[in-house]
């Protein structure tokens, strides 16, 4: 029995409870098995990279963690509660691969609406604009933005609630290298403040910026380790080579 719960701080914040705990998760979409018995744990305050080719089940796994995916079996515990349960809706931020913002509103109007839904104070809008580097564009109608600006607008929306867990599906697609580097700095600084990040990518060079990597293929986890140990174990110089080594070793 824990006796220290009176200190008010939720247990996951001290690393007692992991941010994500998945046991034997199974997801069937149509007649294909999208996730085939995945078990994993993600420690809080870390940046975990979810890598794998398109169609490997990354998005489905993320959707199961956010609690918007119908699952066939297994257990998904997020921040100590069942994934998708009402108290988690304000504590988990999710950015889908396709930017989900209102195209006919300005960036600021989008942020203002989602801030009201999340009950976030107005100054968070300003902070989110700065973090994603959209300051100066806030009066632009979202439809007129470039692809990279659009995905940053979508990311800004997820930052409004200052979530404890941030699930980002390919957030850096189509961004120029400077912005990509800046966003990864943002992710690191969020993690330093205790936010847990799960970031999917199919760009292997982003893997080195993560504390831990989850390599997915055909609905299963191929590898679950640090970038360094993965490289040492497989002998591959690049993570692409490491990935190939793992696939061929099966």
């Amino acid at each position: 029995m824990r006796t220290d719960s009176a200190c008010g701080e939720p247990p996951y914040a001290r690393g007692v409870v992991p941010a994500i705990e998945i046991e034997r998760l199974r997801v069937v979409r149509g007649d294909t098995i999208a996730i085939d018995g995945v078990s994993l744990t993600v420690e809080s305050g870390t940046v975990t990279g979810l890598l794998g080719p398109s169609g490997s089940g990354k998005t489905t796994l993320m959707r199961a963690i956010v609690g918007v995916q119908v699952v066939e079996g297994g257990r998904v515990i997020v921040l100590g509660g069942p994934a998708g349960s009402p108290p988690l809706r304000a504590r988990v931020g999710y950015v889908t691969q396709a930017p989900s913002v209102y195209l006919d509103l300005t960036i600021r109007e989008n942020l203002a609406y989602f801030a009201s839904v999340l009950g976030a104070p107005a100054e968070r809008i300003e902070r989110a604009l700065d973090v994603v580097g959209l300051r100066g564009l806030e009066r632009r109608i979202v439809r007129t933005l470039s692809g990279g600006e659009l995905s940053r607008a979508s990311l800004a929306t997820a930052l409004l609630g200052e979530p404890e867990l941030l699930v980002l599906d390919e957030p850096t697609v189509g961004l120029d290298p400077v912005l990509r580097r800046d966003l990864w700095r943002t992710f690191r600084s969020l993690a330093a403040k205790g936010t847990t990040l799960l970031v999917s990518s199919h760009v292997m060079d982003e893997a080195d910026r993560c504390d831990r990597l989850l390599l997915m293929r055909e609905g299963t986890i191929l590898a679950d380790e640090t970038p360094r140990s993965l490289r040492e174990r497989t002998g591959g110089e690049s993570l692409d080579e490491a990935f190939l080594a793992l696939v061929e070793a099966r």
Partner: protein
Amino acid sequence: MNLRITMATALRVLRQLRRDPRTLALVFLVPPMLITLFRYVFNGQPGTFDRVGGPMVGIFPFSSMFVVTSIAMLRERTTGTLERLMSMPLAKLDLLLGYGIAFASVAAAQASITSAVAFGLLGLHVQGAVWVVVLLAVANAVLGMSLGLFISAFARTEFQAVQFMPAVVFPQLLLCGLIVPRDRMEHVLHAVSYALPLTWAYDALAHAVRGGSSGIVVRDALIVVGVTVAALALAATTLRRRTP
């Protein structure tokens, strides 16, 4: 449910509409244009315009709000914003009532403009109170909106959503009594007409226009409100937090 979120949603929906001035122009100008056309088509029969014009003022908002909301909600589903909202602390009722408040206010404006043209410029004459006709028009708009919210779940594309308009609205227009009095219809059609919400919406309007029994108007209006609530409840079941 949370009043802050509901009102923020209503405001957001209205902002989106304001960004689309052409749609707003169509919503506000097409009904008065059609009623004007109607007036001059029946130029030789002023009695017909008085009999049918009043109910038409109250039925336009039903069909236009049906189309506009079914497409607005379809966009919410297909662009991923619905999924995002469903992963946030927003109650389904916040979303549905937000839409309801936004479109009811648009419908009130639409009904007022149409009434002003019909009663003010075209000399439409009704025995009953004009405000009752306008109020019923708003109720019918909210009915059309809630049916549109529900039906949007069955459309994958905007093409499909638009086709639901003739599929859902036209049969009701034919059977509601506006074109042929219901007691002169075939037995089967007459029986079917009882089950269609627009029948009751039209019946309320027809009585209101004639200055008939207010008891019947209230009964019919309550049926319209009841169907609206039922359609909203059905719409709520189509908003899924988890999807396959």
